[in-house]
């Protein structure tokens, strides 16, 4: 059942590419159905995982025994990522049905979209380091093409920038894979973890070098400061549903998930190396939010906030304590939900007003009530206002900082949250609540089509109710088990091998 997560989107991509040209309406239905099936499958996997021993499901590709063949591994961390990615992808697909009418060749868009989804799902389920590289490249190449989908000059420019930096990142990741293979002669996650555990500590200096290469490579993919320069160009240039996918899940899957899985479960990172992650997280938080403050382009502002919020996630996970990891993981889920929601609302306003400049928007409260409501929910979530989900995860991260006496990080996290609030107050005031700026253009605007409203409302509801995941009873069912996967560290190898 595990391979279906890549087989379904890949198959849909090729079917849509083959027949989408001739039967226009089919690509919408195919893409939505495939996404719906993937969401259902992720929930099914979550239920199935609870009844399996050790909470690990494995699948041997082609029946080859690991470490010789490729092994697909699903544990709680993977299931969490699968759920997040596929839910956001479903909402983006539903949104695209109406939104992408503005572009020609919708079927090409769906084909690339499904390829990107296949790549992301593949990165999440794989248990093999080179296989992960291949899936990472599938997702990355599809996203490069999607950023330049409109073929305007700005989009092409942003895409080229993204391509160059993304290729350098992939090269560094490939170099680190070559070093790992030359040192350990294995590509299997579990096998690498087991071999490394038995090596004497003083012989692992090359692993330190590999970890540094990976932090740079995956940091480029995750757009951590100082590797962030491509993100504020690339994410706003893409069509809105793709911005939602890129900011919502792509940087997390390709950057954070891959990095965290490798560092914690495969290489068994030590506390002193984790300090680098904390430093990168704090830097990203500050730089991202300060650069966001003076932006007037709605989507560019959101893109800068992505950098800042990814900083929170990395800070939380980098603390290394159970509470910190819980906060980081929970903020990862929340950020996927509210950032994709905000990007979808930016798409909705762009759809009706054809502008992204906040100074030219305004007066949308009466004309577009649903979009305004969704933007309000997203803004309150991202700025951490209780009881929305963003509050709980930021609160846990700040608590975790105080718990290990890192008061500096706690203060920074609180201040960045306030700056985020001020930034989004600006968005809501100028974008939605003020009087219309130029009355002539404002008269004929009306609410966006129903598919766009539905997808935004689904994400808003999820933003409001995701806070219940931290309630003690529900937390032990799901989030605590995700944290447990990371806490076990290189035990991962033994657990996977005992579950073949």
């Amino acid at each position: 059942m595990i391979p279906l997560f890549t087989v379904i989107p890949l198959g849909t991509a090729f079917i849509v590419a083959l027949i989408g040209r001739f039967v226009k309406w089919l690509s919408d239905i195919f893409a939505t159905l495939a996404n719906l099936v993937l969401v259902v499958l992720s929930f099914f996997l979550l239920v199935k995982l609870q009844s399996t021993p050790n909470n690990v499901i494995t699948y041997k590709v082609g029946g080859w025994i690991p470490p010789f063949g490729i092994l697909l591994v699903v544990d709680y961390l993977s299931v969490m990522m699968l759920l997040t990615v596929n839910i956001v992808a479903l909402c983006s697909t539903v949104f695209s049905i109406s939104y992408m009418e503005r572009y020609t060749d919708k079927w090409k868009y769906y084909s690339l979209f499904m390829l990107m989804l296949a790549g992301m799902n593949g990165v999440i389920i794989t248990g093999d380091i080179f296989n992960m590289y291949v899936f990472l490249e599938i997702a990355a190449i599809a996203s490069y093409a999607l950023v330049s989908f409109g073929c305007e000059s700005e989009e092409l420019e942003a895409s080229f920038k993204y391509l160059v930096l993304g290729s350098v990142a992939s090269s560094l990741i490939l170099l680190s894979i070559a070093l790992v293979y030359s040192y350990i002669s294995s590509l299997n996650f579990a096998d690498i973890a087991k071999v490394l555990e038995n090596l004497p500590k003083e012989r692992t200096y090359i692993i330190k070098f590999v970890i540094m290469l990976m932090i740079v490579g995956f940091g480029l993919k995750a757009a951590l400061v100082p590797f962030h320069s491509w993100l504020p160009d690339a994410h706003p240039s893409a069509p809105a549903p793709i911005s939602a996918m890129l900011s919502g899940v792509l940087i997390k899957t390709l950057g954070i998930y891959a990095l965290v899985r490798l560092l914690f479960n495969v290489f068994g990172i030590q506390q002193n190396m984790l300090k680098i992650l904390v430093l990168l997280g704090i830097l990203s938080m500050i730089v991202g939010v300060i650069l966001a403050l003076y932006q007037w382009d709605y989507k560019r502002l959101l893109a800068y906030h992505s950098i800042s919020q990814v900083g929170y996630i990395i800070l939380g996970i980098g603390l290394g304590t159970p509470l910190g990891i819980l906060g980081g993981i929970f903020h990862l889920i929340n950020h996927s939900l509210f950032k994709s929601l905000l990007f979808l609302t930016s798409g909705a306003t762009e759809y009706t007003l054809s502008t992204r400049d906040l100074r030219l928007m305004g007066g949308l409260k009466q004309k577009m009530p649903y979009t305004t409501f969704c933007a309000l929910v997203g803004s309150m979530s991202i700025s951490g206002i209780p009881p929305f989900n963003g509050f709980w995860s930021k609160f846990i991260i700040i608590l975790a900082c105080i718990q290990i006496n890192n008061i500096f990080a706690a203060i920074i996290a609180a201040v960045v949250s306030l700056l985020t609030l001020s930034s989004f107050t600006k968005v809501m005031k100028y974008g939605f609540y003020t009087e219309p700026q130029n009355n002539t253009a404002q008269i004929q605007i009306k609410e966006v089509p129903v598919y766009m409203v539905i997808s935004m409302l689904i994400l808003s509801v999820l933003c409001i109710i995701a806070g219940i995941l931290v309630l003690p009873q529900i937390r032990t069912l799901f989030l605590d088990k995700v944290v447990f996967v990371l806490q076990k560290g290189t035990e991962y190898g033994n657990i996977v091998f005992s579950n073949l």
Partner: protein
Amino acid sequence: MAGYIPYILCLILFLVGLYAILVKKNLIKIIIGLGIIDYSLNLFFVLVGYKKGSGFPILTKGETVHPMVDPLPQALVLTAIVIGLAVTMLMIAIAIRLYEKYGTFDITQIRKLKG
């Protein structure tokens, strides 16, 4: 020492590619730089599996077992080459489109994005 020379040459090739990406102003030269980085990494991967004085990793009938090079890096390099091909093609396609829009390959003149 002599055993290290291929690795050092590999590193120099990598740095040449990096230099092209960082310094050159022409889109096409940047693409070539990325290609050079790809080649240096592929070379490194093949070198990892190479053992001096060993044959190709195929055992024919009636032959005794002889030292072989590691075949797995070669398989991985094939995959990496295909990925590199896809990236290069996409990059060239975008460069052509950029030339149509801006009329130049000079990156100092391709800057509509700012902020």
